[in-house]
């Protein structure tokens, strides 16, 4: 399985004819995991000069934010922002989570993937 499959699954959830709020939340959550795994793969390919420690998500964000390359730093900020939206989707049940909230996370995930593709092209 590839990281992108998470995003494909997220997009499919929004294509369903009958939506439930749980679909929006799942879509946002899946879209985050696509970003998380893609960022991890990027770091495996271009490791940071100072490896960080801690829980996987925090560690990945920290390594990106602390990276010597500013484009990685931007990715870290983006991933952190998406993690925050994923938290809303998975934990804040009392707060309404809408179709637009899910679309926003998916659009943002595509933007992050594009930023990673640009970095990889530039590094080739």
């Amino acid at each position, binding site marked *: 399985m590839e990281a992108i499959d998470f995003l494909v699954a997220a997009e499919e959830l929004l294509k369903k004819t009958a939506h439930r709020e749980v679909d929006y939340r799942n879509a946002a959550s899946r879209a985050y995991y696509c970003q998380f795994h893609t960022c991890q793969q990027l770091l495996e390919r271009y490791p940071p000069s100072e490896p960080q420690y801690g*829980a996987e998500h925090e560690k990945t964000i920290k390594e990106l934010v602390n990276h010597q390359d500013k484009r990685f730093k*931007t990715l870290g900020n*983006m991933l952190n*922002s998406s993690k925050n939206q994923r938290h809303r989707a998975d934990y804040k049940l009392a707060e*309404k989570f*809408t179709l*637009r909230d899910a679309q926003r996370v998916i659009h943002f995930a595509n933007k992050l993937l594009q930023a990673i593709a640009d970095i990889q092209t530039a590094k080739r």
Partner: protein
Amino acid sequence: MPKLATKSNQLLQELSQLLHSTRNIDQFTLKRLQKEAQSLLKSEALNAHLFLGALAGLQGERSSVHENYKQALTLAPTNPNNAIVLNNYITSLLDIGSFSEAVEPVIKAYDYKLPISEIVTTILAKAGLFHRAAELIRQDHLVVAADSFIFRTERFMDQHGVSDAELQKLIEIAISVLHAHQFFDFRFTKIITEFAEEEDSQWFRYVIKINGSVEDIVDMEYELACQLAEDDLSTELLLNFITAYEFAEEQYGSD
């Protein structure tokens, strides 16, 4: 506002309606009112500057907001007029999301002993100045409904070695991205400050609820991420303090 002549009165009425209107304000009306306010500059300078300051706020013209209210303050150096000017000055700055810039006039108004302790601490918090808000509460023994949140944020900032100035800068960057996208109208914008907790981690959220499209929000969020990477902000700040744009609740019904 000070006692007004008839023309001022009409202008005041129109302006009040605009300030409380939830509809988009048309530029033609704004320009007409601006022209009318300018015509009062010689005969009623104080009122004219108050009107021009408020109109500048509605147009998102920050420098003109400062210019007119500062002029009004020099024309009304004593109480109660200066308190009225300060009150309007603060309102105009808050209406365009210039929370940091509202701090100075707010403290000045507080020094005039206006009964605004809750407002002061709320504005300081919106600007990211939690240490200063906590200090005020302790020093003046203020009774403020949000004090426990202010103290909690102060402790959280200390834990991560984050100063008021750093958090203020982060918030200012988030607001500047909105301004760059022509989002100037904060009259009905909800700002939420809260903590998010998940397993062993915890972070501070500063949420700005706006009326915008999915594309608007995604573009601004991306620009914010780029801008934060450009500025020299600490990792502790970036990891533990998150500013986010979210959809205003009014739009939830449209799904």
